[in-house]
Each structure stands twice: as structure tokens, then as C-alpha cells.
């Protein structure tokens, strides 16, 4: 695509960009979090959220209020906004939105498959599925017995189909295979998304590529961390790493050889971006977990995405920020409802 988005961006996407920036302004502020933390009961949380942009989204909920009710209502709200964006978008922004939903779709498919493996009913699991990743064929996932079955029968017409090319095998689906499938899917998804943004060029590429690179590297780290002490071989592990990150290729090779957390940390030390993150991780008790540190870094990048104009990254960033906000509210609400106030302050503030 031609450079110089500012010339024509607003013709097609100006309205939505304005809208999403407005939505971003309604994220909870630091003061809101301070007030939320002071709440005694979930009712207080509800009253406080009423004064924010959430409005009376819980007004029609009958008592008693539970955390899951809050969570579903918040998700519904995000979903409504997202659907609105998506329904009003034009190409190539709509493709961008489709890419955004793909990650949720992968999660949902994997969730359903796991459920089928444990012989749970589809309805039960459907409730847990993320509404952004909903698609009609989803409920038929449990028909399939092998990944190729899954591809041929169910997913061939969904946006997920292209990501399946690398993971067509005749293995039966057991828990490990499903996990491998998820990571492979995610890898090809991230690479495809990265390629899409790169090809799109312009500000979108400048904003989205670093975010996706970070996402890829984060996955690589997390996969490595989770594979310690499992039967996953090092070669297999390397095939799961998304290759669009900053770690590619040397860092990934080193990570594949890592055997414990310290070795992983040594790999990260080679990279200026990740060194401070690993340094911020507290050891053992107290301090932040690696996950939290990554979340914080992600929030930071997403907030910065709003400093540039005329790109699609704002939509991605907004969705991620909103998700983080929801995680925060749920965390606070959980702490309140379980009367476990000592950790209530370890939410991730959105600057």
C-alpha cells in the first residue's frame, strides 16, 4: 500500500478511529482504581463502576452479585463495542479485525477440544468461551478426532483455516497434542498477522510490528518456561516458537537449549528490551511474576500506540487495554469477595 496514510486514512476509517479514541478515554483512571480498591463489597464495586463509563451495565442483574456476573457483563460490553467497530469497518481494517478475533477463536477451539476430551457437554463449555472468538462451526469441534479431521470438517471455511497448514497430522487428540496444536496454531497465526501488518506498511506496520514481535517473544518465553520438566523434546520445542519476534533466530535457538529459568534469563540478557523485564521479576515470594511484568510491558506498548494517528493499531491496543482493565476489575472483585485483601493492589495499572 502507498505511504502517507494521513491523506486517505480518514475517508474510510476516520470515524472508527475517532470512536476508538473516545472509548479509550473512558478507561478507568488511577483514581478509579484507588476507589475500587477501597470497596467493601461487590455492591460497592457496582456503585463505583456506575460513576464510570460502564454506567449501569449491572442494573438488570438480580441479587446477589457475583464476580462472574460482572465479568460476563463486562465482556458483553466489550463485545458490543468490538462488533460495532467490526460492522462499520471497511477493508483492510475488517481483515485486521478478523485477525484480531483469530486468537480468541484459537483459544475457544482448544477449550472445546479439551472439554470434549474430558467428556464435558458442549453447552457447559460454551459459556466459558470468549464471546469475541465465537463462530457458528465452533460447537461442532468435538466431532473431529484428528487435527486433519478438524480441519476438513469444521474449520475449513473459518478464518483459522490457513493456520492449519502446518499442523495437519493424523495423531489422535490427547491433552499434549492439543496443547501442541494450540501453540502451532498460535505460531502460524502470529506470523500471518505479522506479515499482514508488515505488508500493510505505513504507520500500522510501525506500531503493530513491535507489538506483535513482543507478543511472539513473550510466547517463546512462556513456552520455554512451561516446558521445563515435561516430556517435550528440545527440537519439538523449537518448532513451537513464533519466528516473527526479535529473538528470531539466535535467541530462539538459545532458548530451545535452555534448561532452567536462569538459562532463560541469560538468553534475555542479550536483548536490551527484555533484560530490564527479567530484572524486574521478583524471586520466589513477593515481587512480580514474569507474567505480570510482561503484562505491564504490553500495557505500556498499547498505551503508546495511541500517540500515533492514522493506523489500525489503536483498535488492537484498545481491545487489549480493555481486556487488561477487565482482568484488573475481576482481580479486585475476587479479592473483595474472598476477603483476601493483601494482594488487592497487584493489579496492572493502565497509565
Amino acid at each position: 500500500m502507498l505511504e502517507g496514510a494521513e491523506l486517505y486514512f480518514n475517508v474510510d476509517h476516520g470515524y472508527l478511529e475517532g470512536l476508538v479514541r473516545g472509548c479509550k478515554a473512558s478507561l478507568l483512571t488511577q483514581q478509579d482504581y484507588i476507589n475500587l480498591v477501597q470497596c467493601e463489597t461487590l455492591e460497592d464495586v457496582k456503585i463505583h463502576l456506575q460513576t464510570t463509563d460502564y454506567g449501569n451495565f449491572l442494573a438488570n442483574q438480580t441479587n446477589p452479585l457475583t464476580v462472574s456476573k460482572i465479568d460476563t457483563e463486562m465482556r458483553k460490553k466489550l463485545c458490543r463495542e468490538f462488533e460495532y467497530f467490526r460492522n462499520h469497518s471497511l477493508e483492510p481494517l475488517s481483515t485486521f479485525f478478523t485477525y484480531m478475533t483469530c486468537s480468541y477463536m484459537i483459544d475457544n477451539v482448544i477449550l472445546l477440544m479439551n472439554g470434549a476430551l474430558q467428556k464435558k457437554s458442549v453447552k457447559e463449555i460454551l459459556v466459558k468461551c470468549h464471546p469475541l472468538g465465537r463462530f457458528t462451526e465452533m460447537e461442532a469441534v468435538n466431532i473431529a478426532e484428528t487435527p486433519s479431521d478438524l480441519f476438513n470438517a469444521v474449520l475449513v471455511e473459518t478464518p483459522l483455516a490457513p493456520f492449519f497448514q502446518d499442523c495437519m497430522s493424523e495423531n489422535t487428540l490427547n491433552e499434549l497434542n492439543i496443547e501442541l496444536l494450540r501453540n502451532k496454531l498460535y505460531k502460524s497465526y502470529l506470523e500471518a498477522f505479522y506479515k499482514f501488518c508488515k505488508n500493510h506498511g505505513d504507520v500500522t506496520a510501525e506500531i503493530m510490528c513491535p507489538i506483535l514481535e513482543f507478543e511472539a517473544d513473550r510466547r517463546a518465553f512462556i513456552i520455554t518456561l512451561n516446558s521445563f520438566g515435561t516430556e517435550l523434546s528440545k527440537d519439538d520445542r523449537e518448532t513451537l516458537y513464533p519466528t516473527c519476534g526479535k529473538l528470531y533466530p539466535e535467541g530462539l535457538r538459545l532458548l530451545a537449549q535452555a534448561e532452567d529459568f536462569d538459562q532463560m534469563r541469560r538468553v534475555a540478557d542479550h536483548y536490551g528490551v527484555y533484560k530490564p523485564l527479567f530484572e524486574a521479576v521478583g524471586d520466589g515470594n513477593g515481587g512480580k511474576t514474569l507474567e505480570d511484568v510482561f503484562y505491564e510491558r504490553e500495557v505500556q506498548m498499547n498505551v503508546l500506540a495511541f500517540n500515533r494517528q492514522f493506523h489500525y493499531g489503536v483498535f488492537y491496543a484498545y481491545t487489549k487495554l480493555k481486556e487488561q482493565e477487565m482482568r484488573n476489575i475481576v482481580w479486585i472483585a475476587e479479592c473483595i469477595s474472598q476477603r483476601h485483601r493483601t494482594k488487592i493492589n497487584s493489579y496492572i495499572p493502565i497509565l
Partner: protein
Amino acid sequence: MGSLFRSEAMCLAQLFLQSGTAYECLSALGEKGLVQFRDLNQNVSSFQRKFVGEVKRCEELERILAYLVQEINRADIPLPEGETSPPAPPLKQVLEMQEQLQKLEVELREVTKNKEKLRKNLLELIEYTHMLRVTKTFLKRNVEFEPTYEEFPPLENDSLLDYSCMQRLGAKLGFVSGLINQGKVEAFEKMLWRVCKGYTIVTYAELDEPLEDPETGEVIKWYVFLISFWGEQIGHKVKKICDCYHCHVYPYPNTAEERKEIQEGLNTRIQDLYTVLHKTEDYLRQVLCKAAESVYSHVIQVKKMKAIYHMLNMCSFDVTNKCLIAEVWCPEADLHELRRALEEGSRESGATIPSFMNTIPTKETPPTLIRTNKFTEGFQNIVDAYGVGSYREVNPALFTIITFPFLFAVMFGDFGHGFVMFLFALLLVINENHPRLNQSQEIMRMFFNGRYILLLMGLFSVYTGLIYNDCFSKSVNLFGSGWNVSAMYSSSHALAEHRNMVLWNDTIVRRSRVLQLDPSVPGVFQGPYPLGIDPIWNLATNRLTFLNSFKMKMSVILGIIHMTFGVILGIFNHLHFRKKFNIYLVSVPELLFMLCIFGYLIFMIVYKWLVYSAETSQVAPSILIEFINMFLFPASETNGLYSGQEHVQRLLLVVTALSVPVLFLGKPLFLLWLHNGRSCFGVSRQCTEVPVPPHPNRYLLFFFFLNNSHLRYGTGMVCSVGHRAGCGGAVSRAQIFNSLFSHSSMFSPFNFGEILMTQVIHSIEYCLGCISNTASYLRLWALSLAHAQLSDVLWTMLVRVGLRVDTTYGVLLLLPVIALFAVLTIFILLIMEGLSAFLHAIRLHWVEFQNKFYVGAGTKFVPFSFRLLSSKFGDDMA
């Protein structure tokens, strides 16, 4: 009371509401709408306030009411809207009301749930019968039209034996049948094909009548399908796929007898369900009808109650928790009303101790209240749109009432257009109580709210139209022109007079296309036209030149008068705020600056008009040149307007030049001098400062301090003072509080640099503004020219064409021409031009007039009044 010149005097009052009677008192206050509450708990977040539980209860009630309204609307029962608004419910009734509503809700929910269940059942049964009906034809078709299908052996035409036939062949044939959403059919079939690899036969047919979707309640088209398959495994998959696509699957009868049986059974059940459903619906309707009667008053009552609790949340509790303290802004004129409202509230709740109030002095700026009526409201809105006036400053709205329509009319000046506008506005004013106008939509509402402005604008346009002598761009000859054409003929004059005059004779009149009337010829100009422009100018080719000169001078004169008036209003502000030095150091130099330059310009214009006549017009000097020369002191002597002109101009220039430094430096230096002077005497002043003599009541207070040792704080004290001293009355209490709460006045530090900068900026703005603003008033001329020309064009392009055609066809042609003329006149000349003139008039007021004196940095007084709650419950609830 309620003067429009300044906003009303406000005072800060403290209300002491006994906690038992606070609700009733606020209810009484809300009905009257007298006071504005200040939030005393600003740093308390909303869920930590005192009455959060009550607010929550109100919200719960609102939720129930919203549900009721929704159900009532769905049942199409008209909601009666009461005329009067019921008062907030007494606390005793609230519980009762809540109980009643909750019971109603539970009942309603149950009934609707039952109803929904019945409806769903019914729908399923109907779907089933449809399916049976349609699939019957499928089987026949299958058999008839697909005899070549490999797996099927050729079948005899007896379709009823179809299934048993297959069984005999040993194939395990299964059927799944049901209904599917129209949009999903294609994907459904594809998936079936992919999953079952073609080992199924799918037949489907569209259902003729659309049915309701039980999940969304939408009425959509459905397809009936029948899947025949072999084998158990595939059967499972087919069922899962059906689930996935949310098909409504119904058991498929194997034999014809079974089918018939089922069909009959279904029919009777449908009949039964219908009757039950009708009964349920009737009952539901009864319940809803009963609810609909009271729902309006309930909604209003709950809204009032919630508003009261919100206000109570703004009050602070005193230490003993017996008494709520509220701080309110109240217009001084309404204080006795406020007292009466409090008494009323106390009496109503039957409390033994009355709630009371007292005023407290404050350094804070009170909100601005200007009482308006339906006439002045529109004009006040124009001013408020620029900025709500600071407390007690001169309110330009009073003068806007006349100047705004007038300046508009100068631009819009046309007798005919003005009259149409006046008639329209008059129509609105006469019918202002008409309910449809009151509830009209956005644009109409805009006109309706500005009806009095429109009325005056129309009236003034009629006046200026008379002055311009324009009626739909034509002049009206009311009094007979002051010019006499026949006097120009040479035959009408004696020969002796012919010398210096260019007179007409027959040949000149015949030959020349343009003839010139010479006013210096005796008898040609017989004196000015009594009102406005002489209609003869309508025929003249130099009409535009004449009018331009006239209108340009007129706009400058009007503009300078308008601005000077603004500066004079500034003097009133300085007088009121007791800053007399501002008059001498700011207003007077400003006035001198303006008048010495532009006032003199006006003088020259008027002087030239008066002194020079037609005979002497040849030697009249140009005002423009004279004005420029005033500043440039040219070497060459021009013959001026009057003798001694040069000296007068020099003097004026000197005054102007002197007023500039005074304007720039006068006020800052004076303030500096004042400040220094004060600090010089500072030591002695501190010594001489007399402490406020303690009031006897203060001793009383101390006395109680000693007596009631458990009360540690003064605020808590006062109640007991109130209780026991009883007869002391509000005055003594007020004084106690005055002495208790008198805040130490806050001194802002003196900053000379800042004051100097502000004054310099203000002065530069003013001096440059005098020139640019005067030029800005030329828009009066420009717009009136544009308006006149546009209407002229419309006339020549349309009506004149229509009038030129000869009479037989002309009559037919004139009708559409006049219609088109009317439409274009209304849309282009009245609405479009009117809007542009309106905007320019607004600009002249906001920028050119108001920046001479108006600060507009106040906040509006927003009383706690139930009237401001929206009385319509359709908008925010349903």
C-alpha cells in the same frame, strides 16, 4: 426582585436539618426550587456517602419500574400521564410502596415466564406439525424422483412401505428431521457433506409461513429438512451438527399410522395450549392495566426521592449525628421563602424541633441568578451562550433585547421580508400554549424558543425596511417623491436662469439613454422624503453608489455608538464593584481614545451632511482624506471642513496620544502605589486593628461548653443552644455562627508584573480593537447590501420575466412563477439570509460590544428543583 440589569444578590446559608425531618424539608425545598446545594463531601467517593443505601433502594425501585414500563409498553397498554406531579412519598409510605412493587414484579415475572413457556411450547408444536406436513411430501418425492440412486433398490411406488422396505434390505437407515434457520441452510449442508462424506441425503423445503425464533423473538423464514443416513456413527455426527446449527429436531415418525396419530395428538394439544395461553394473556393484561394506573406517579415519586437522597449525600453530619448541615446558595430575596419551606417541612414530619437556617458570610463568589420570563429568556440565552455573567456584573441581555433585533434588522432591512418574519413569529407567540409546539422536534423547537427574538427581529426589519424603502426589493412610493423631473425641462424655466444649468430639451431626452437630475436646478429637488430613502432612487442608475455611501456611514455611526455604550456600561461595573480608580484610569482614557478618533469621525460625517448642500457639493472635501490628513499633517494646506479644523484635530490627537500611556500604565502604577502605601502603614494598622467584640451569645456558648462536657465541638453545640435557648431565634444563632465560622480572609499576594501584563494586553487589545471593531461594523453595510442585491436578483430573474409575457399566457405563467418566487424568498432570503444576519448580529454583540465590559466568568445558579427532573418517563426508562 428580579432585575435584569444585574444578577441577584446571593447569600450562603447553612441549613440545620434535624435528621428526622431532613427528608421532608428537602422535599419542600425541591418543590419550590429555591436553593443550590454545595457538595460538602467532595472528597468522599460515591459509595462511602451516608445515604448510599437509600439511593440503592431508589435504584432498585427504578429497576422494577423500568421493568413494569417495558412490560406495559410491550402489551400495548396506554400509559396515562398524570397532569400534576405527586410530591415525594413520605418515608412511611416508601416501604409500603416498595413491598407493593416487589410483589407486583414477582407476580409479573412469574406470569410472563409461564406465558413465555407456553408460547415456546406452542411454537414447538406448530413447528412439529409443519415438519410432519412437509416431510410427508419429501418421502414421496424421494421415491418418485430418485429411483436411480445406487444404494436404493428400485422401489415400488408404495411410499408407506418405504421404511420397512429398507429394513428388509438390511441397511440401517436413520432419519433426522427438523427445522433450520434460513440463513444457515447452506453452511449446514456443506458441513454435513464434509463430515459424513456424502453418506447422507438431505432434502429440504422452505416453509411458506415465517415463524418466530424462540431465542431472539424475531419472525424469520425456516427450512424443513430431512436427513436420511446409514449407520450409527454418522447418526451421532449428524445430531451433533444439528445441535451446532441450532436446528429444532423433532422425532420422525416411522409409519403412516404413527404420523397420523402424532398429528392428531398435536392438533388437540395445540388447541388446549391456545386456550390456556389466552387465559394467561388476559390475566397478564389485567395485572398490567392495574399497574399502569399508578406507574406514572410512582416513577415521578421515585425520581424525587432519589434526588432528595442525592442532595442529602451532599450534606455533612454534625458530631452528634442528630443534625444534618447543608450549605446552600440562596437568593437574598428568597430567604423568607426558604424559612417558610423549612418550617413547612418540619411541620409535616411532626418533629418537635424545627429545622432552621442562618446566613454565613463568605469570600467565595456566589453563582449568578438572573430571573427571566418567557420574553427575556431568549435574549438571556444569547448572552449566556457566550459566557454566564460574573456575579453582580452588568448584564448585557437587558440591552440586547433592543440592540440585537436592531442590528439584525439593519442587515436584514426589507419591509416585506420583515413582515413575513413578524407574522411567523406572531403565529408562534399566539399559539405558544399549543401542546404540539411545546413538544416539537429539534429545528422547530429552536424557532419556538426564539419566538420573541424573531418577533422583534421582524418588527425592526419592517422599520429598517421602511427606512431603506425596500419591499421585496421594490421601493414604495407612499408620500410622493421629493424630486420633480419636469423641472429639468428647459421650457419650465425662464431664459435668464438657463446660464449655468444643464437642462433637458426634447432632443436630449430622446437621444440619451441616461439622464441626470440636477438638484441645484430650482424646483427639481423639493425637499427630503418624509421617511427613509426617496423611492425615485429605485429608478436611478447610481442608486447603489448612493446607498453604499449612506449605509457605510450609517454602520460606522451605529458601531461607534454601540461600542461607546459598551465602555460606559463598564463604568457602571466599576462603580458597583467600588473600584473608582478604574473609572479614571481605564474607562475614561478608553472613552477619550475612542471619541477623539472615531467620535470625531462621526462629527465630520454629520457636519458634512448638515453643512453642504447641492450647490456647494462640488467643493465639499472628502472625509476620508480629511481623516487621513488628521494623522499625517500634510504640508500642503487643504481647504478643510471648517476654519480652525487643524487646531481642533491637533488637540484631539494630543488627547488620544496622552490617553494611551494612562491606559497602559495608570492602573498598575496606582495599584503599586496603593500596595506600597499599605505596607508603609502596615505596622500601625496591625496595632490599630480592633478585635471583634464578642457577642453576648458567645458567652452563652462558652457556658454550654462548660455544662455539656461531652460535646467537644462547636457545631454540635449549636443544636443544644438551639434547643434550650429556643426563644433565641435565628438571629442569635446566626451570630454565633458568624463568630464561629468567620474565615480569615485570604490575601492573594500582590504581583506587579502580572497586573502590568494583564493591563498591557488589555490596552493593546482595546486600542487595536477600536480600529478593527469599527471596521467590523461595516458588516452591517455589507450584509444589507447583499440582502438587497439578492432580493433584487430574485425579482428580476423571476417575477419580471413572468410579467413580461403578454396577458393571455401571462396569467397561466404567473402562478408558478409567483409560487417559485415565494418558495425561494422563504428559503433563500428569509431562512438563509436571516441566519447569516443572525450570526453576524450575534458576533457583533459577543465580540464588539461585550468585550468592552463583560467578563462572563460566572457559574449559573442551578437550584435543587423537582421541576428540572424530566417529567416524561418515556425517554430514559423504556
